């Protein structure tokens, strides 16, 4: 591979924040562009050609999204993104259950301490409305204990929400086992798959997933679009979050943004076609980065388990070196201290705290996300830049001396 010209000094930074958002794939852009311009019809205008062309494009996209998770196209509801999908799944299921009480009511929701803010905030809102919410801890590797989960699910539990692959630490939860547990107990299983969809195999049937949140801009698709998978058999019923024209079978009103739907569909199709090969490539780059850094940075530590992990994701603690300082020392790298939504916040990541990290260690951690457009040269450049910054830092020097003294 030819060296990337951007690797010289004083140019655009190397983008290693692919959990936050991803660059739009040119092939996705190409698919979308006609629907921004000449094919601008409202897909709900069934009475004329522009509307029907738009509607047909939306339905093709729906099929592509469904296919990637083994769903029926009718089980895919387009939303404005994963945040809305998560809100719809949790509040929709809870509000429907409250409005249609069974003889044995279910008013209990279980989730994990490491879930995305939009799941935790939706749960907090539901708790304010009188639902009971249990927030389970995770182990040091970021995974939930199946025993603890089994104990937490009671006959009153309506829904369990567990992120498929984690946005900060990249760990992949045992979805099939969790799904089987939920199915056995009659609990709805929702998974926030914003980071997992298109990157690891997901099968709603094999994993007994009832609700799945999907994002476009995490898989080289457009921003402003996502989807919620809603199981039809057995039927999962939700109260809508947005009411209006009754689009999306009444579950989500609002004119569908055709170019964005088309973009999500194309992005899903590409991710599906290239998943196996791309996972191997990213895993190799990720391991190369990890080994290159671990060799040179004393005390470097991987946050979250190493085995069950997204191919392109690393969360690293540089003991004694505050992440902000490290990031400032590497202006040529775009990396983050955690979730973009909270990355401007100064307090340590609640996710890393939930893994048992001290405030100091959590504050010394950065998130690295390799993606489709990341090259080996970029990974090597990043490793050099991070290792050099760590070596320059006094705290690291002290550590390094201690390390030498010990060996």
């Amino acid at each position, binding site marked *: 591979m030819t060296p990337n010209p951007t690797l010289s000094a004083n140019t655009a930074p190397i983008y290693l924040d692919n959990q936050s958002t991803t660059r739009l794939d040119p092939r996705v852009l190409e698919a979308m562009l006609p629907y921004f311009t000449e094919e601008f019809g409202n897909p*709900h205008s069934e009475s004329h050609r522009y509307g029907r062309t738009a509607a047909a494009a939306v339905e093709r996209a729906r099929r592509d999204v469904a296919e990637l998770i083994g769903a029926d196209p009718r089980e895919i509801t387009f939303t404005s993104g994963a945040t809305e999908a998560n809100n719809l799944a949790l509040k929709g299921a809870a509000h429907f259950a409250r409005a249609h009480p069974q003889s044995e009511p279910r008013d209990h929701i279980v989730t994990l301490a490491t879930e995305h*803010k939009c799941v935790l905030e939706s749960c907090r809102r539901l708790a304010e409305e009188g639902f009971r919410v249990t927030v389970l801890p995770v182990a040091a590797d970021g995974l939930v204990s199946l025993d603890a989960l089994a104990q937490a699910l009671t006959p009153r539990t309506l829904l369990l929400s567990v992120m498929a692959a984690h946005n900060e630490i990249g760990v992949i939860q045992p979805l099939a086992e969790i799904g089987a547990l939920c199915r056995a107990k009659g609990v709805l299983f929702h998974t926030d798959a914003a980071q997992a969809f298109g990157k690891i195999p997901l099968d709603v049937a094999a994993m007994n997933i009832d609700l799945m949140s999907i994002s476009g801009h995490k898989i080289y698709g457009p921003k402003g679009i996502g989807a919620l998978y809603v199981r039809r058999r057995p039927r999962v019923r939700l109260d809508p*979050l947005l009411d209006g024209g009754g689009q999306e079978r009444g579950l989500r009103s*609002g004119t569908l943004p055709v170019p*964005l739907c088309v973009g999500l569909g194309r992005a899903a199709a590409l991710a599906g076609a290239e998943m196996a090969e791309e996972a191997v490539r990213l895993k190799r780059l990720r391991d190369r980065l990890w080994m290159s850094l671990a060799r040179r940075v004393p005390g470097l530590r991987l946050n979250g388990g190493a085995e069950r992990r997204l191919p392109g994701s690393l969360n690293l603690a540089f003991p004694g070196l505050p992440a902000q300082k490290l990031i400032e020392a590497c202006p040529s790298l775009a*990396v*983050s201290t955690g979730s973009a939504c909270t990355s401007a916040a100064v307090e340590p990541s609640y996710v890393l705290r939930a893994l048992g990290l001290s405030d100091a260690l959590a504050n010394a951690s950065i998130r690295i996300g390799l993606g489709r457009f990341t090259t080996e040269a970029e990974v090597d450049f990043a490793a050099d830049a991070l290792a050099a910054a760590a070596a320059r830092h006094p705290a690291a020097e002290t550590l390094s001396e201690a390390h030498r003294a010990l060996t």
Partner: protein
Amino acid sequence: MKRAETYLDWNASAPLRPEAAAAIRAALDHCGNPSSVHRWGRAGRRILEEARAAVAALVGAVPEQVIFTSGGTEANNLALAGCGRARLLVSAIEHGSVLEAAPLAERIPVDGDGIVALDALERKLAADPRPALVSVMLANNETGVIEPVAAVAERAHRMGALLHCDAVQAAGKIPLDGRALGADLLTLSAHKLGGPPGIGALVVLRELDLMPQIRGGGQERGRRAGSENLPGIAGFAAAAAAAAAGIAAYDDVRRLRDELERAIAALAPGAVIVGAAAPRLPNTAAIAMPGTPAETQVIALDLDGVMVSAGAACSSGKVRASHVLEAMGAGPELAGSTIRVSLGWSTTETDVARFLAAWAALYRRRRNLAEGMRAA
């Protein structure tokens, strides 16, 4: 040869303005989450805040008052569900996203021209002291009738109520000043004014605690969570700026629309222009061809390459009488035979002529059919 196509369904969705296309194209090339603190994120943040200022300028607001949403429907839902008012009063001709978001709301009637009944509003407000929100649209999507929103606001405020105004159809077609209107909350949609679909805004023109409906990462100052749809927002802003700058183009649109209506009246004395006596948007004509179901008209026009609708796009697939026309007192005969013809800034004389030719041909066929049946 490709058959000529005449698009006269602008109220369903407008074609993308070139300025918006360029802004979207540029933003699509930019990869960065505006919440990220690194350089790519900060560049995204700049695009976001410049766009917020442009959208604010369209309605005479300040940038901090603009909350980006996924569209008009979400903005309407956020206004009604998030305002925290126990009592909701909505006009009977509101868009489905207002009526369905507040199914228990009290309905304010309209008169035969489609104008909201101010005296009825006053009586309703006086009858119940609970803090209320009144929701009245600026211009109706089916008839184009413009509501006396400033007068509604004056009455609402006098009684301690808030006013929400769905300005989705009016924005970009008539000059718009949120403060002059007296609206406390204003809904906008990008794709109705030449921006992309999938983006809109709720403009909050007064200090009030809005309860978020989509919760999460704290974007939009905690009022609407979710990673920002940056290309959509950039396209919205470019379209808003172009719409504000090009508002004079609607003088020509009005002239075309008026010509179209005059031609219809000359052709078919029995035809009715719904709401003609009221102030209306310059681009909208709701035309009844009595005796011919709207669906029949829409299909026949479509076969001739002319695209119009039988009502709001979101419900145009359903065979159901328009709640707007019903509220105006139209009987099932009139309501069932009314189509919506909506023009836009690039509509030409030729478009109007094609529509008139197709409409006249259908009208004659239907008249001959009716005469034939009478003769037999």
